[in-house]
C-alpha cells in the first residue's frame, strides 16, 4: 500500500514538473526577447568556452577542430566519390552510345597528325605556337589544332615543309562563333592575348564560372571554360573570360586535324550539293554525244589538214 502511494506521488510529481516546464516554455514563447537575454547572461561562461574551442590555437581546441574538419572532409569526399563514380558510368555509357551512333551514321573519325610544340607564346611575339610538322607531314593552312581528344586551341596559319605556325583562339583580334553550354546561347569570342579570350553577351543572360565554351565550326570542338565574369549592371554588356583547359606553357604535343573538320558555310555546302545533284545522272563513257563529238572533231581536223596541204 505504501509502495503504491509512493508511486502515485512520484507520478503526480512528474506530471506537475512537466506541466510547470511546459508553462515556462509557453512563457518563453510569449517573451522570447527576455528569455534570450537571460539565457545569454547565463550562458556567457559556456559561450566563452565554446569560442575558445572554436578559435583558439591551443592544443586541445586545435585537435578537436582538426578532427572535425577531417571528418567533414572525409564525408564530403565520400559523397563526391559516389557522385563521380555514377557520373563516370553515365559518361562511359554515353560515350559508347555516341560511338555506336556515329558508326551507324557513317561518321568516320578523321586522321590527325601528331606534332610537337617547339615554340610557345613566351618565346613567340603573340599567341602563336610553332609545331615541328609541316606540309611534308600533310599539314594544311586552316587545319584545326587539338590538345587531347576534343579541345581545339587554334588554327594553322602558315606552313613550311618541316614546321608550321598555329594561331591560337586567344590571339588578339581572332574571332570565332562559340556556343556557351549552360545558358545555351551562341556568342562571338574574341581573342584578348596572353592565353585569354573573351565572350561578349548582353545583360540578362545568366553565365557562370565553369560554363563550357564550344566551337561548333570545328568538329569536335571544345575550347575551354569561363573562368571569370565581368558584369557591371550599369553596362549594356557583360563579358565572360575564357581560358583553355590546359595552360599554354604546358602544351607539349598537339594533334593537327584536317581542314575538312572545319564546317563550311551554308552557301558553300549548298553549291557543292547542287553540283552533286546536277552531275548525279551522268554516267561516264556511255554517252553517244561524246563519240559523235570526237568523230566530228576528227573529220574537221582531217579537212583542215587537207586544205593546208
Amino acid at each position: 500500500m505504501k509502495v503504491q502511494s509512493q508511486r502515485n506521488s512520484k507520478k503526480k510529481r512528474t506530471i506537475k514538473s512537466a506541466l510547470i516546464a511546459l508553462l515556462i516554455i509557453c512563457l518563453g514563447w510569449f517573451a522570447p526577447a527576455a528569455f534570450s537575454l537571460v539565457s545569454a547572461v547565463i550562458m556567457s561562461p559556456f559561450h566563452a568556452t565554446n569560442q575558445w574551442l572554436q578559435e583558439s590555437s591551443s592544443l586541445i581546441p586545435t585537435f578537436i577542430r582538426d578532427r572535425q574538419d577531417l571528418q567533414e572532409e572525409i564525408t564530403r569526399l565520400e559523397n563526391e566519390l559516389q557522385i563521380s563514380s555514377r557520373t563516370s558510368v553515365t559518361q562511359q555509357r554515353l560515350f559508347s552510345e555516341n560511338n555506336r551512333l556515329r558508326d551507324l551514321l557513317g561518321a568516320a573519325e578523321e586522321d590527325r597528325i601528331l606534332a610537337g610544340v617547339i615554340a610557345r607564346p613566351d618565346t613567340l611575339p603573340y599567341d602563336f605556337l610553332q609545331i615541328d610538322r609541316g606540309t611534308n607531314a600533310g599539314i594544311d593552312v586552316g587545319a584545326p589544332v587539338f590538345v587531347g581528344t576534343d579541345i581545339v586551341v587554334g588554327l594553322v596559319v602558315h606552313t613550311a615543309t618541316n614546321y608550321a605556325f598555329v594561331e591560337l583562339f586567344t590571339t588578339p583580334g581572332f574571332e570565332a562563333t562559340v556556343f556557351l553550354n549552360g545558358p545555351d546561347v551562341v556568342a562571338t569570342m574574341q581573342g584578348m592575348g596572353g592565353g585569354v579570350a573573351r565572350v561578349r553577351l548582353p545583360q540578362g543572360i545568366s553565365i557562370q564560372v565553369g560554363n563550357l565554351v564550344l566551337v561548333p565550326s570545328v568538329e569536335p570542338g571544345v575550347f575551354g571554360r569561363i573562368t571569370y565574369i565581368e558584369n557591371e549592371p550599369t553596362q549594356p554588356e557583360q563579358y565572360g573570360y575564357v581560358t583553355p583547359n590546359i595552360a599554354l606553357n604546358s602544351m607539349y604535343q598537339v594533334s593537327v586535324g584536317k581542314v575538312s573538320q572545319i564546317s563550311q558555310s551554308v552557301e558553300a555546302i549548298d553549291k557543292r550539293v547542287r553540283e552533286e545533284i546536277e552531275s548525279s545522272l551522268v554516267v561516264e563513257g556511255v554517252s553517244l554525244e561524246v563519240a559523235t563529238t570526237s568523230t566530228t572533231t576528227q573529220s574537221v581536223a582531217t579537212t583542215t589538214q587537207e586544205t593546208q596541204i
Partner: protein
Amino acid sequence: MTLNQGLLAIVLYGLIIISIMQSLLVLGVAATIIFTLKYSGVALIPLAIVLDGYYGAFFTLPLLSIAAVGWYVVSEVIRVRMSIVQSGT
C-alpha cells in the same frame, strides 16, 4: 549525494552543453542518457530552456525544451516500470 556524485553531475551537465554547442551529437546523447540514469531528467529541462533561449528558438519553436520535457516524462515512466519489475522479482 556525495561530493563525487555532485562533481560528476556538474561535469556531465557541462559536457552536455558543450557537446550541443559543438554539434557533437553522439557525445551529447551519451552524456544525456548517463545523466538521466544516474540522476534525473528534470534537471535537463532548465538546461534545454536556457539553450533554446541562447539560440533564439523561442522566436520560432523551442524544440529542445519540448524534447527535454518529453524525455523527462519518458525516462520517469521507464524508471517506474523498471522499479515495478524489480519489486515484482
